[in-house]
């Protein structure tokens, strides 16, 4: 077990390192000159040179990468070119808003998708409701869904404020967008998993015991059917916590996604890098947690871990 954990953590560190390296190199491929973005379009070459020297932009890429890596290991993600604040502070400030939105969205997609999946999974044929949800929600891109909700419930009906920011009922529409967006994926996975479990030989054993349908489903079907959901939810958790760019932008939600978008326009490399690093760390931690949780739920996976 200890050896398994050590291997997994080692692999996680390697993953994060690769993501950091790749993103860092990509920053230099993407067009845009941070010095120009900082100094403005009318800056003289001398000013630009000075800015570059200050930011160590003249050094070889690998030297810059080394500098970043050492800083990162000390918890220093650099200083924003534009906002002159430590990146770590900027992200920390926005984490609560992102967490609030991400967790609400995750809860909604789990509840909506899980309920629909279980309900549909108990019928032999795919229900019309699931078909409608599939066509209706899978084919609609997030941004149309976000705008539709904004238009209908924010603008026409005025049920929710649309002035941006957090607090009060402002969470409802962006969380609902995330929930509706994720719902069909969960519904389909849960349905397929329910059908598979219902057809399993051990479900037949439960029938042969003379148990009621409710007891069979509660004790033998649900727990076994819900295990793939754990994997999905864990990854979603990591992705949602590292910021949802589009939904945050549409609803003016001041989270990490919005910070990332702004940093992209500003060629604010440290902030961009910072958000990517945080996302990578979250995903690695989430996958590890999922695997450990799955071992708790499903004893079969424990054998390989020994």
């Amino acid at each position: 077990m200890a050896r398994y954990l050590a291997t997994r953590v080692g692999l996680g560190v390697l993953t994060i390192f690769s993501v950091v390296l790749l993103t860092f190199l990509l920053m230099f491929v993407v067009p845009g000159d941070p010095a120009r973005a900082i100094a403005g379009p009318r800056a003289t070459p001398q000013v630009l040179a000075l800015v570059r020297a200050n930011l160590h932009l003249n050094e070889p890429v690998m030297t810059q990468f080394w500098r970043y890596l050492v800083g990162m290991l000390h918890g220093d993600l650099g200083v924003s070119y534009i906002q002159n604040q430590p990146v770590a502070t900027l992200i920390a400030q926005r984490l609560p808003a992102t967490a609030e939105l991400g967790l609400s969205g995750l809860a909604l997609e789990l509840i909506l998708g899980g309920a629909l999946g279980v309900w549909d999974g108990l019928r032999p044929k795919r229900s019309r409701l699931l078909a409608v949800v599939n066509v209706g929600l899978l084919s609609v891109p997030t941004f149309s869904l976000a705008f539709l909700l904004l238009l209908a419930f924010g603008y026409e009906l005025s049920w929710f404020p649309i002035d941006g920011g957090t607090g009060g009922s402002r969470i409802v529409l962006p969380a609902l967008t995330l929930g509706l967006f994720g719902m069909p994926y969960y519904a389909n996975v849960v349905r397929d998993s329910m059908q598979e479990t219902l057809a399993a030989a051990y479900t037949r054993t439960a029938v042969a015991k003379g148990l009621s349908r409710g007891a069979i489903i509660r004790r033998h079907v649900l727990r076994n059917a819900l295990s793939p959901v754990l994997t999905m939810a864990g990854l979603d958790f990591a992705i949602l916590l590292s910021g949802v760019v589009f939904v945050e932008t549409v609803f003016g939600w001041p989270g990490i996604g919005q910070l990332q978008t702004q940093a992209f326009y500003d060629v604010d490399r440290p902030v961009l890098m910072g958000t990517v690093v945080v996302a990578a760390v979250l995903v690695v931690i989430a996958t590890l947690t999922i695997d450990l949780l799955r071992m708790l739920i499903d004893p079969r996976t424990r054998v390989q871990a020994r």
Partner: protein
Amino acid sequence: MIAAGAGTTADRRRTQPAGLSVSDLHVRYGSSHAVRGVSFSVPAGRTLALVGESGCGKTSVALAVSRLLPAGATLEGSVRVGGLDLACAAGRELRDARGRVVAYMPQDAMAALNPVQSAGRQIAEVLRHRRGLGRRAAAAGAVALLAQVGIRDPHTAARRCAHELSGGMRQRVMLAIALAGDPQVLVADEPTTALDVTVQAGILALVRRLVAETHMTLVWITHDIGVVAEIADDVAVMYGGLIVEHGPVREIFERPAHPYTGALVRSPRLSRRAAAKEPFDAIPGSPPLGEFPPGCPFHTRCAHALAACAERMPETLQIADGHRVACHLTGQRA
């Protein structure tokens, strides 16, 4: 090997032993007619071996008798245990009968055990449900049952999940689940087929002893004629969805009347011949699946087939006490 005394099983028994009587059983999967009018009866406490190659319909009979046919299969005929016709039972009546009137033991115990629940919990579930035991009493009962089915360290085994148990132990756990319901009839569908010969012998001895103690009625499905000699009182030979020969085990082995039975009875010698590098003389061809030829289903593979065999189904004739056969050859001789 056995921890619990022989008395415990008999003391625990609350239901009267009852025999099984199946008549004119038909099973259809859509247009495929898997079982075409099968009748047999097993007196209480006796063991019937249902023998035949894969595809002859024996598993369909097992699932029909246990009322575990998959959705989409249709069942006709009657399956009587005591005063109850299982074939007609539905809803509450059927649920009450499951595990108590008839229990089913499948071939693949690995798949039949819930992979994420301990063996003890899956046995205890039946004890709680069927005997209304509390959590602790049921857990203790599960351990006692595991001991009864010959598991040496029942406390440890009770905590194990299917993948942590050996093949023989898994089958013993399935047997314990079946016994937990205190069934009148146990239908075992090739439960030892996947096991080593020595493990199989241990389980056969155990089942034989349990049948003697509890007066359970046992239907043992197998394609292995060697197992039949070990466990059965009577033998029913199935071919093409029909019972072609039925009789006491000695009769069947010593005077097989149907050519198919004759070939089956000679088949165990095959393994010895293989060791001696002699050529096989297996039954040529394979059994028909779903679509049956007119007449006797075996006539396409039968070395002694007559003209009549391809035209009409032979009648079932009684050739000795309790020994019945459906073959035109027998009819001619008589």
